[in-house]
């Protein structure tokens, strides 16, 4: 099912937190370029999509968001 419209804007933030918690994503706050962080985040989305057997696109599509919103264990899926 699609995500609720009112929550759509929060998805990016939610996904970032999810990737930080479970896929060892670290935002590079020193980077001057937003694109650097976005590219890194896309890599982590790919990693997450591959783990769950989703189509690996690096994009925060509906199926990826749906998977991120499933209730789950708090232990990371990957470790640094």
């Amino acid at each position: 099912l699609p995500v609720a419209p009112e929550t759509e804007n929060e998805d990016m933030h939610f996904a970032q937190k999810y990737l930080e918690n479970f896929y060892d994503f670290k935002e590079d706050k020193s980077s001057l370029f937003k694109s650097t962080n976005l590219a890194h985040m896309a890599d982590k989305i790919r990693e997450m999509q591959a783990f769950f057997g989703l189509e690996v696109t690096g994009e925060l599509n509906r199926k990826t968001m749906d998977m991120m919103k499933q209730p789950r264990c708090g232990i990371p899926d990957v470790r640094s």
Partner: protein
Amino acid sequence: YSTFPQNPRWKKEDVTYRILNYTPDMLQADVDEAIAKAFQLWSSVTPLRFNRLYSGDADIMISFASGFHGDFYSFDGPGGTLAHAYPPSRGIGGDAHFDEDENWTKFTTYSGYNLFLVAAHELGHSLGLGHSNVFGALMYPIYMAKDTRNYRLHQDDINGIQALYGPPRESPAFPTKAFLPQETTEMPPMEEPTQMSPREEPTEMAPTKRPEDCDPHLTFDAITTLRGEILFFKGSYVWRKSPYFSQIEHDTISTFWPSLAAGFDAAYEIDKKDRVIFFKDNQYWAVSGYRIEPGFPKPIQNLGFPRTVKKIDAAVHDQNTKKTYIFVGNKYWSFDENTQSMERGYPRKIAADFQGIGHTVDAAFQKNGHFYFFHGSNQYEVDIKNKKLVRKMKSNSWFDC
């Protein structure tokens, strides 16, 4: 399967555990049983023995806590993270924490989380297993509600734990090989019939085969909008018309809400609350996306219907007035969503207020300032403001036939 870095494991076969506190969601005896059963899953396929302590330090300390609870990972309220556990080591190692903000249950229902299933997963971490990417494995990180009667570990879980501890010393009472790969089996019926799972009821209205989209005689049980999409229900089938994809998608009700019985009588969406109400016989359920809201089903009499009303035909919500029209036979009722009460002066005759609708209504929904009423294989577009019939169409006109 996976293990933690450096493969931490208990270097002994007798491992102790202690339950530090209890969730108020369940009887203490049921918590004890769920935890013991979870340990038994792992001991049945390894040489490990688990002994419970009632005081002092145990290898695996089990507790329920909310929010920040003194470790590296705070809990996040209902949903999201359910629990976590630490790999074998001294101190916090091996400990399992459960989020008290979840609703813990003894049975597999869709209003809570089965403590046995979650505990069995977490104890896998306590013994040294990481997450598995094999769908259906216990160590898969996502909670999947499933029947826990005669629950057996997935072969991937068995391979993982035996890579750390080896097989049991004596012949196990049952084979260590999982009976069935769970990803290839359909979800079995619910463990215990609950109010939320009337699935075992026969669904007379459920067709054995999904009718063709463009069948000119196609009729529907119920129709509702949901987050910008339109869902058409008939028996166990759902036609899904979405602005996100061009084709009509075909699904079953159980795909979205596995615990709901097929054959809805009616459905409507209150979009501002992100809530859909489903009616079947004399009960109704509220869902938000995939989640069935706790406390349902409720009897339709709670909405203000007299006992003589055993089921309803159709329902539609007017987003502007916050009124929901509920159709029963040749009459309709008006339910005020703001006051959560039935309006005075109802029921009224459908034909008296909706000009041109001189019959019962099978299904209804609202879209773009119009009500769409369905009767048999026909559909009637009605202007919401003046309640006048605009045009008549075939019921499947939304399927681009």
